[in-house]
């Protein structure tokens, strides 16, 4: 099958420039409203539940989940769907345990919540380490993915693609802050979901509108085993470990958590998770159809011929059922997806650097507003330059494991401390510090010793640590260390102020002190 993938097709360029023009227009509009630090980080807390739900979905549905999962399903069938499902089940956890308390307790970062009744400096430093570790690995995965994808989709060189992503993304964040970032996410989420709907519709049109006829065709052509589990999940412990990291990692992703500060109150935070889960769930259900559609209509061999990992399955499918014009649209959507996710990540990294490290550690919480605003933008600039540099440094490296690693660190470093600080009276500064540091570094160490690095990246025969994802060990470890150290280092003020935390969690920020 011939394809126009990899050439700068006019349709792709048209859609891409349209997206960039619209989003830069939004940024210009947002820039005129972004006049304070509060606006820069939280869009003035004026985002509605539906808007934030879409923006959360936009932040969460990366190109990896769109192109990667469709590709995995098209090559190995059912196994790819395990990721679709794993990426969704973290959202109920966010809803039940984190969203509303976070909104009521914090201002800009999740460290605000952990540090609320604890000593600021040690907690902020530990939280910044956890945040920056998650953001860095997630960014590397996105940037390297971006370079490769854009090269495949548009035929432009890897480095040029990385620099374009870096510049456009920085324009959004630097000038438009959270307001522009939110609207870029909304536009991108709407494009991605409608693109997936149209693509799935075009596929199903060939099967009488019946997904089961599509699955049956896949099973007739490639054997009934494509509809059932294959070799991806061979070891139950491995599966549990990855599952735990996906489930609790979502509730520890800094760029997701930050979004809850953009809404006016806890009730709207609740509404936004409801919408987000609906959108993300529908999208992942559509990946069932896109993946099997690509398998049947394009065929695994044609997909592998373009990219071994299968990442081009969805674009190839778009070309097969909708022609080059539609391929251009889907390619531009994939590009937009990367831009939006990278913008969200950069903003949350900048918030950790400027709000947690500069304002609360270096300046002891006393920086004047003007200075905070400037530092926030300098941190954004640093983040943008760093992400371009990381993208170029890691060119050609196998970075597929980095998203899993980011989830593992988020689940082991950020989630336990966040949960304990909201719900456990006896949590202390030393406990929080220990939990976050142990969570970050145990996840890093075990990933390094795991088959993911030792076998897949370094090419050794075996690995000292048996699990591919460290979550099964590091999440309980981080909880245990946090609780043990807290019990060993009682902190009177922290437990006395728990009543205040409880009032604020349930009654809102106005009810804080009494």
């Amino acid at each position: 099958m011939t394809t126009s993938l990899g050439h700068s097709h006019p349709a792709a360029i048209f859609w891409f420039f349209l997206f960039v023009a619209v989003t830069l227009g939004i940024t210009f509009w947002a820039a005129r409203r972004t006049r304070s630090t509060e606006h820069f980080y939280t869009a003035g807390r004026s985002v509605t539940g539906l808007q934030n739900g879409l923006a959360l979905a936009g932040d969460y549905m990366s190109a990896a989940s769109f192109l990667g999962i469709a590709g995995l399903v098209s090559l190995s069938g059912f196994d790819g769907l395990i990721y679709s499902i794993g990426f969704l089940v973290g959202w109920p956890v966010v809803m039940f345990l984190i969203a509303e308390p976070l909104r009521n307790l914090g201002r800009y970062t999740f460290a605000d919540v952990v540090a609320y009744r604890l000593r600021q400096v040690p907690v902020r430093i530990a939280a910044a380490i956890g945040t920056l570790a998650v953001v860095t690995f997630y960014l590397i995965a996105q940037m390297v993915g971006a370079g490769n994808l854009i090269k495949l989709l548009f035929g432009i060189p890897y480095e040029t693609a990385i620099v374009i992503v870096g510049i456009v993304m920085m324009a959004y964040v630097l000038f438009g802050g959270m307001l522009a970032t939110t609207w870029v996410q909304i536009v991108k989420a709407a494009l991605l979901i409608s693109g997936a709907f149209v693509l799935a519709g075009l596929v199903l049109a060939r099967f009488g509108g019946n997904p089961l006829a599509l699955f049956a065709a896949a099973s007739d052509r490639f054997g009934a085993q494509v509809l059932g589990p294959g070799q991806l999940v061979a070891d139950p412990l491995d599966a549990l470990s990855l599952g735990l990291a996906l489930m609790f990692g979502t509730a520890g992703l800094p760029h997701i958590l930050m979004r809850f500060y953009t809404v006016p109150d806890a009730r709207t935070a609740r509404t936004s998770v409801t919408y987000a889960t609906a959108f993300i769930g529908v999208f992942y259900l559509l990946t069932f159809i896109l993946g099997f559609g690509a398998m049947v209509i394009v065929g695994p061999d044609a997909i592998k011929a373009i990219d071994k990992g299968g990442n081009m399955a969805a674009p190839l499918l778009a070309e097969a059922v909708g022609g080059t014009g539609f391929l251009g649209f889907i390619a531009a959507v994939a590009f937009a997806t990367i831009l939006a996710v990278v913008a969200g990540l950069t903003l949350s990294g900048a918030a950790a650097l400027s709000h947690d490290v500069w304002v609360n550690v270096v300046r002891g919480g006393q920086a004047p507003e003007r200075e905070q605003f400037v530092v926030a933008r300098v941190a954004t600039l640093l983040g943008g330059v760093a992400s371009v540099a990381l993208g170029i440094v890691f060119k050609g490296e196998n970075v597929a494991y980095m998203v899993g690693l980011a989830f593992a660190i988020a689940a082991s470093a950020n989630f336990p401390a966040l949960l304990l600080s909201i719900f456990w009276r006896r949590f202390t500064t030393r406990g929080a510090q220990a939990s976050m540091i142990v969570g970050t570094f145990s996840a890093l160490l075990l990933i390094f010793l795991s088959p993911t690095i030792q076998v897949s990246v370094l090419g050794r025969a075996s690995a000292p640590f048996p699990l591919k994802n460290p979550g099964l060990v590091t999440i309980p470890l981080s909880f245990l260390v946090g609780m043990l150290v807290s019990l060993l280092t009682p902190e009177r003020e922290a437990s006395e102020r728990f009543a205040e935390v409880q009032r604020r969690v349930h009654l809102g920020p106005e009810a804080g002190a009494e």
Partner: protein
Amino acid sequence: MSDKQRALEALARAQWRLALALTGAMMAIFFGFTLLVAWAKPLLTTQVVRGLSLGILLGAIVIVSAWVLIWVYVRWANRHYDRTVASLQEPGR
């Protein structure tokens, strides 16, 4: 301890219990599914009707169950939690 403080603590306990129960339910559903994927491969490959394997059916059910659990929480929060919070926010009680 004031009445208001007692009511707040009761609300906090109720919220925590429900949050924990629903999180536990989501974990049970998801990890149950994961273990079936690891251990019952032939079972999940069997087709319930033509084209629909048990694995795909259960996978879709996991996604739908996440929606259902969220719906249960939101219903409770909108009906009971918000009302109690509003009554506790009233000044002079």
